[in-house]
């Protein structure tokens, strides 16, 4: 297993080109092309702004402008959920490669996660100017937590992506199940409502069990409302993520030989 992990390093050139290809091919043929990477989050931001300032205004103290607050959680969530949705089908979609080319299969889910990470980082180019405009971004040592959160989310997402990719080969139903689970998970995470609301606090235990709570809250604290009080949870999640990644890789490695036959 660890041999395979080091082998992965040798394939970093391939991972890099595949991520670039994914990003290029995604909008190829559309008029706006790569601009969609920016247009998509802007449109999303406008929709949320409209809904939460005009249709059902939310005036909770400390999270204004509300659309921007939600955006701090939605961007990482989109990275997370698209990564999982894409990796779950990645081995089946790349079946041709697995069956015909000598090729470490884990590259496929990893590429899905990384391509979505690049999209996430590009989305920040929309979010950050917004934060600066509304004077919400406090330049301080707190910002150093941001790369930590990104790395932890990367490890966590990759671990989960490997498990889902490997199991989906054998249980195709996971793909359909997953979209519903992700929907539920989204609403069960403090993304479109703030973490410190009274009715959320009542269920704090439940929220603490949800790993993405800690990522979302950390991003909100880092980018939006100041002191990073959640760092202990974040680091604990980091440790758990490494465990999840190793477990995921182990499972993937165990099932590896069955892919070429079952895909």
């Amino acid at each position, binding site marked *: 297993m660890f041999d395979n992990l080091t082998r992965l390093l040798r394939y970093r050139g391939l991972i890099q080109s595949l991520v670039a290809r994914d990003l*290029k091919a995604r909008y190829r*043929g559309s008029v706006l092309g790569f601009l969609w990477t920016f247009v998509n989050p802007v449109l999303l931001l406008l929709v949320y702004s409209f809904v939460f300032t005009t249709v059902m205004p939310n005036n909770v103290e400390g999270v204004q402008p509300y659309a921007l607050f939600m955006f701090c959680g939605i961007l990482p969530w989109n990275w997370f959920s698209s990564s999982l949705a894409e990796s779950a089908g990645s081995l089946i979609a790349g079946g041709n490669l697995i069956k*015909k080319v*000598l090729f470490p299969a884990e590259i496929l889910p990893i590429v899905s996660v990384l391509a979505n990470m690049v999209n996430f980082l590009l989305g920040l180019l929309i979010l950050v100017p917004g934060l600066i405009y509304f004077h919400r971004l406090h330049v301080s040592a707190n910002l150093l937590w941001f790369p930590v959160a990104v790395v932890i989310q990367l490890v966590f997402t990759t671990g989960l992506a490997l498990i889902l990719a490997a199991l989906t080969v054998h*249980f195709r139903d*996971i793909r359909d199940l997953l979209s519903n689970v992700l929907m539920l998970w989204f609403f069960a995470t403090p993304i479109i409502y703030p973490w410190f609301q009274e009715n959320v606090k009542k269920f704090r235990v439940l929220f603490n069990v949800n790993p993405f709570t800690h990522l979302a809250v950390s991003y909100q604290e880092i980018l939006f409302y100041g002191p990073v009080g959640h760092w202990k949870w974040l680091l604990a999640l980091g440790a758990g993520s490494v465990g999840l990644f190793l477990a995921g890789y182990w499972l993937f490695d165990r099932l590896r030989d069955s892919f*070429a036959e079952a895909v």
Partner: protein
Amino acid sequence: MKPAIELVNVSKIYRRYGGRQFSTLKSALLQRSILRDLHPSETFPALTDVSFTVPRGSTYGVIGRNGSGKSTALKLVAGITKPTAGTVSVQGRISALIELGAGFHPEISGRENVFINGIMLGLTKHEIHDRFEEIVDFAELREFIDAPVKTYSSGMYMRLGFAVAIHVNPDVLLVDEVLAVGDEGFTHKCLDKFAEFKRSNKTILLVTHSLNLVERFCDEAFWLDAGRGMKHGDPKRVVGAYLTKVEEGEERLLATTTAKAVEEASRPGPADASGGQPQPAEQPLDPTSDMSQATEGRWGSREVEITDVTLLDRESQVSFVFHSGDPITIRLKVRATQPTADFVFGIGLFNADGVCCYGTNTYLEEMNPAGLTGDAEASFVIDSLDLVEGTYKLDVAVHKIDGFPYDYHRLLYTFRVKSRLHDVGIYRPRHRWAFSPNVTFKPDMDRS
């Protein structure tokens, strides 16, 4: 020196993860038995105890019927799948031409795909950059290299895939039936490239149905049948043994086809239901009538019945496959329910298009019938079957001189003529070529 490729007692059992998992995700999760449930329900042995060795620098051909495990063997050598038992060892960098252009992305340009495909096959960006021009020229795609691959024709797609794979510069090249990727010119270029590989002492493992290629190109051949190694060694001998086996199979197939045709035609159908009344001679033995429309059948009064028709080869053995130029005997067994002096034996030979190759009968050949009683035999002996390769059908009949049929078997008997030459037409006259001394030929035909 270690051989380039070595397979020792390799078995590969494909597992079928049967249809049950569809309903068992829930139960698998509940019982925490995902890994256990992934154990196969059905198995299928693709290779059984196969061993072969390919010395460095040699070209090795693997032949066999469809489904005999050739491609599985290649995938094992490529490392794409793992053997269930036994060991596979390969020395040096492998490039597998198993599926050309696997992993091309349709939306991006040929140029970008060359780079990604090259990296997948183990080249570095720098190496691809150096070889890029060569690859594009080889694929003959200079004008289209910046167009998205989805706009390519399948030939262009394959050529590009082939060009990338062949420029990986491997020590061991695995080729799975991919030479049919281009027009004649491109095929020659590929063969030239293989010859160049051979000269630079690289190892080639070739899986193909083109026996011709194996004979001309390979140093050694290996014949797989139903996942077992049957024979390996000199390509000509292996191909010969394989062809013999193929003929046996064809022979069995033709035997069953014929038996079925006879049985069906002899079954009393609705037309015969009128109390076995003899039908009128609707189809007199006229070899010039349009046979492409004709269907199999049997009719006649059966006063003289053809009870058995067999084709005999040189050794008087029943056979359905003959080589062009072989002797063949068509033997009819007949039974006359009462003695008769009015009878004609006839035969007609048709090719697959329904063209009459030859037809004759005893009356046309001016034999005057005198008597036929009880069980009798009539043989039509051809000393040399001078027909080109193909499948042929046979009419046999016994009828009265005026054409009234006793027993007429139309196209019920099928046999195949094989030939090592691919000459065309129907009839191959006995022939030879003669030249003046200033026309010369090389001793062996070798187009590469």
